[in-house]
Each structure stands twice: as C-alpha cells, then as structure tokens.
C-alpha cells in the first residue's frame, strides 16, 4: 500500500512538468503580455516598463529560459508574486483552492447520494415507468448546459428569494457574523451551485449504476441469497450493492477532470470565487504566476482524486491488492 502510494505520487511529477511546460510555452507564444496595458499609460515612463519587464522576466521569448525562471523558485516552494494583485501567489490561491474543493466535493456527495438509489431503483424496476422516469432525469442531467442550468437556478433564487443569487457569502453582514453564522451562510450560498454541478455529474453515475446493477442482479449469488429467504432489501443492499458499486468508483477517477472543468462555468455564473474563475481572470490579464500555480494545483487535485479512487476501490473490493 505504502509503496503503491509513493509510486503513484512519483508518477505524478513528470505529468506536472509536462503540463506546466506546455502552459508556459503557450503563454510565451501568445501575443502580448501583462505589460501591454501598462505601456499604454503615458504616465508610466519607458524605463520603468523596461525595468518591470526585466524584473518579471518577460523580456525573453525563449520558452526554456522563461520556464526555468518559473520552475527554479517554484521547486523551492516560491510561486512568485501576482502581476495584477500585489500579493504572493500562495496567499491568493489557497482560499480559492479551498472554495473549489468545497464546491466540487459537495457536488460529488450530492450526485452519489442521488445516483446510487436512483440507479438501483431503475435496475430493480427495469423497463417500468419508474425506470423510464429515471432514464429521463439522467438524460436531462447529461444534456443540460451548465451555463443555462446555473442561470435558471439564479432566476429561481431571484424570483423566490429562497436562496442567494450568487456569491459565496453575504458581503454586507460577513464581518459581524459569528463563526457559526458564517458557516451556515456559506452553506446557504453553496446549495444552488452544488445542485447544478451535482446534477450534471449525476447522470453518468445513474446510468452506470443501473447497468451494473442489472448485471449483478442476474448472477447466481443473488438467486442464492433470495432462495435463502432473505428480504429483498437485504439482498439489494448487502449482496448486490457492494458488487455493483466498484465500476462507479473507477469512473469517479475519470470524471474528476470533467467535474473540475464544469466547476469553472458554474463558478463563473454564480460568482463563486474558486480556482476556475481565478485561472480565467489570470488568463485574460496574462497574470502568468497565477496561471502557472493554478495549473499545478489543478493537476495535483486530479492526481489526488485518482489516488483516492484507487484506494477506495482497494478498501471496498478485497480482490484488488495495491502493489
């Protein structure tokens, strides 16, 4: 187990190098840089701009040189200063990563909580109206564009006033809130984006769960369990569920990238200050240190997610040994 974890983490290192290098290369190759807007300002002298160019290492077009200037401090844990916001990248990115983790994590829990029972129901009532209804729900989740769904939810929030229409917390009252109130307020803001992201992810799990369950229910050990006189509930939960759930965990690893990509749009529409909106803003303003650090965080999140999926699989399925 331990060697497996170490080996997998080591395997992630080349991936980080490749991805960050590609990102840097594209930033270097793209037209213009952060100083373009500053250059247009007549109040700032040419010498100062040139000095800044040297300071930010934007004066060279050599990809390897530029990459090295980023890589060397980054390896030592220094991700540099943001160009646009005068703060270290580390201080800017930490909170954003937590926000994105909160959103994606709760969306995952949401989709699993609904997908497993729905998939089981659909399999048990195969080809009946309940199955068809669940099939329709999963098609809905599969097809609805996250942008449109988010906007619908915001419209719903604005019309009914039940939920806040965007943002992560109440800007006005935040400073005078007790920690408990802050916690509740954040959860309150989390509900709608979580539903959007969770529904979209849910579709895939429901369909997978349904087909796995149908497969499992047709096997001999289920017939044996039923023949023993066990209740249907017990057969389903104790005998079928554990066997049907394995492939779901495998696709959880795969779907993580989709989830993170979907989170970008949901964050953007809901004004949720997460990693997605941070990267988007940084890309528009060519804030290279932020882009690079965010990309590293993204890859780390993906690797960690896949690792969790593998470990979970090993815990649930005794046939799988992690070597």
């Amino acid at each position, binding site marked *: 187990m331990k060697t497996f974890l170490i080996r997998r983490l080591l395997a992630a290192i080349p*991936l980080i190098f*490749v*991805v960050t290098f590609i*990102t840097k290369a*594209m*930033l270097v*190759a*793209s*037209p*213009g840089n952060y100083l373009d807007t500053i250059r247009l300002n007549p109040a700032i002298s040419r010498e100062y701009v040139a000095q800044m160019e040297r300071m930010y290492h934007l004066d060279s077009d050599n990809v390897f040189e530029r990459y090295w200037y980023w890589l060397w401090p980054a390896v030592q844990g220094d991700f540099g200063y943001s160009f646009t916001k005068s703060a270290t990248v580390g201080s800017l990115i930490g909170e954003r990563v937590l926000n994105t983790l909160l959103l994606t994590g709760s969306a995952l829990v949401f989709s699993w909580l609904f997908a497993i029972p729905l998939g089981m129901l659909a399999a048990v009532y195969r080809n009946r109206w309940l199955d068809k209804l669940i099939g329709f729900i999963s*098609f*809905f989740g*599969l*097809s*609805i*564009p996250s*942008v*449109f769904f988010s*906007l*619908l939810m*915001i*419209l719903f929030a*604005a*019309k009914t006033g039940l939920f806040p*229409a*965007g943002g992560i917390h109440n800007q006005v009252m935040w400073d005078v809130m007790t920690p408990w109130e802050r916690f509740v307020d954040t959860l309150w803001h989390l509900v709608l984006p979580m539903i959007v992201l969770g529904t979209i992810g849910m579709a895939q799990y429901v369909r997978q769960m349904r087909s796995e369950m149908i497969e499992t229910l047709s096997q001999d050990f289920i017939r044996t369990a039923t023949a023993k006189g066990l209740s249907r509930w017990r057969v389903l939960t104790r005998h079928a569920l554990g066997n049907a759930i394995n492939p779901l965990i495998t696709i959880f690893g795969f779907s993580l*990238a*989709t989830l*993170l*990509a*979907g989170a*970008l*749009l949901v964050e*953007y*529409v809901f004004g949720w200050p997460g990693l*997605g909106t941070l*990267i*988007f803003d940084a*890309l*528009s303003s*060519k804030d290279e240190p932020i*882009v690079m650090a965010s*990309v590293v965080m*993204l890859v780390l999140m*993906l690797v960690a997610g896949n690792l969790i999926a593998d470990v979970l699989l090993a815990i649930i399925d005794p046939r799988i040994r992690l070597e």
Partner: protein
Amino acid sequence: MTDLIKHDKPATTPSREEAAITALTGDAQAAEAGALDLASSAYATISRVGGRSPSQLLWLKLRRNRTAMLGLYTLVAMYAAAILAGFIAPYKYDNARHDLPFHTPMLGRIHFFDEQGSLRRPFVYGIIPVDPQLATYRDDTSRFPIRLFVRGESYRILWLVSSNIHLFGVDEPGHIFLFGADQVGQDIFSRILYGAQVSLSIGILGILISTITGMILGGIAGYFGGVTDFALMRSVEVLLALPGLYFILILRQLFGTGMSSTHIYFIIVIILAFIGWATEARVIRGMVLSLKEQEYVIAARAMGFSNSRIIIRHILPNTLSFVIVTATLSVPFYILGEVALSFLGVGIQEPEASWGNMLVAAQNNRYLNDFPWVLIPGVFIFVAVMAWNFLGDGLRDAADPRTLS
C-alpha cells in the same frame, strides 16, 4: 481433427450451429431435422435479416427506437432552420432597434380579433416606448397584420441563393419580436436562427475534423504499434486527463483577441477538434489492434499492398459503425464548447449571434430577473444537445451486435 469433432456429436440431432449453417446453405433435409431447434434460435433471425447490408440493418434497428427517431427529427428540423435562417428570420441578426431594448416577447400577443371583436388576419399592435430606462412599452392602436413572404433585408442561403423574401414579417414601422428583444433591441428569434448556424455547424465541422484525425492517428498507432503507438497514446492520455475547458482556455489565449468572427469561428473549431480527436483515436486504436490480426488483412499484406492502402481501404472501413456512434455522442462536446467560450466572452463576438454569446445578457442579474426571455437561447442549446444524445444512444444500441433482432 475436424473429423474427430464431427463424429463426437450424435448424427441424428444436429447442433444449432450445424442446423443454421445447413439451413443457410440450402440443405433441405438437414434443415428439416433441425427445424424445431431453428425456430426458437437466434439463427432464424439471421436468415430473416440476411441479405441486408450492415448499414441497412443499423437503420432498421434505429427506426424502431422512438426516442432516437425523435432526436433525429428534432435535429433535422433544427439544422434545416439553421440553413434557412435568412428566410425564416424576419430580421437580420444585427438589425437593432435601439429605441426598443428588451421588448417583451410577442408570441402570446398576436391578435386575431380587433377592438370591435371581428376576426382579422393575425396582427400585432404598434409599439410605443413608455420608459426606455425600465424598458416598458404599451400597445399603439395601429394594427400591423403579419404578412407571409414579405420583402425585407437581403440574405443568402448557403452562399448560393440570394433573396430578400422572408417567411413572415410586418410592415414598417411595426416590429415583430416573437421571442422578445435583447439589450440593444435585436430580435431574439432571428438571432437564435442565425446563432444556430454557428452553434450547430461547429458541432458537425468539429466532429468531422477530429474524427478524420482520430481515425488516421488511431489507425497508425494500432497498425504499426511500437514507438509510434507509445508516443501517440501517451499524448492521448495527457489530453484526456486534463480538464478540457481549462486547456481550451489556455489554447484560446494563444490566439489573442480582436479578430473577425469568422476567424474566431475557425479557431474554436480547431481548438475543440485538437482536444476531441483523443477520444476517437483511442477507440479506433483498440479496434485496429484486433482487426489487423484478421485473415483478410494478412491476405492484403501478402498481396503486397502498401500500409496506407491497407489501413485506409481495408481496416478503417470496418471501424465505421463504431466511429459513427462515438462521433454522434461527442457532438454535444463541440456545441457546449462553443457555448462556453462565447459565454465567457472569448468566442463569437457581438454583433454576430451564437447561442453562447446571446446568454451573456442573462449574466446580468437585473436583466435575468426583469427580462427572463434572454434565457430562451439556452432552451435551444438544451434541446439540441438532448437530441444528439438521444440519437447517439439509439445508434449505440442499434450498432450493438448483441441486439440482433
């Protein structure tokens, strides 16, 4: 060895396989012996459907799938409307009535009776702005009948037919906003039709490019194996592992801003196809790996055909049904990709219309709350994506050899 097996089985009761083969080859006596067996076996189906090409079979099975056909009909209607956008839309996409921002949809306000209660041909009332700041309007007393085949702005259909006849419209100074107006007074109905040209065609064009690339690269990787395979598959894995939208955005900034919409359109297609080919290539490679061991490929190689000929003429055609299924199922990725980019402001720019950039107005909370019809393009995206998913799902079921009936 074959003799041994034959003698192993009792001669009087032929196995299903033998019965089927003899039935197919026309041996009447043996077929009679196995008739009882045959009637209940899957081979009866083979003889019934025999004589049809695989694509005919696919179509037969697809036609029986109601949701898939619903998807197909919806798509045909949507793509036809997109091609005929200039004709169906009463106005051009950039025809802006700056004095009438956010006019309410008139779809439910087409009148059939005048004030006296007598039946008229369908008409709408003229519009008087009350408060342009709040975008409130009231009806004029003047009536503008909805006429068919009216002359208006000229347009082109598929760069070929030029005309100025529109399906319907009202005379000036009346104006018809079936789905309402946006923030600069452009007709949302017309813009949805013109937007469909962009949003829907990106799906087709993108899938064509990525499928062809995926087929060629996947075919090469599977056929040659070795270093080529290794290198191609590692890049496929990297592409599939990255969160697509982030990568799309990073690629997008490579091209800078301030280009014409045609430019941006092709950039979007190229970016999406650059990511999309990975899925196709992986599927194709897997199939080619098994196909290249088949006898007919070995025969083709023995006949001295070149590798490219074997790949293109012998192997790839056999992967076609699976390619069609994966392609259909991945069209939504392209449609949603364009929507995402345009919505984020790095895609199709105003005044050109696309379903994504039309939704930008809804990002403003006041607009969304007071003028919810700015969301209508989202309904169309949803329906288009759903239709592609229905069709793709049906095709997958139809192409599955296990459901041979």
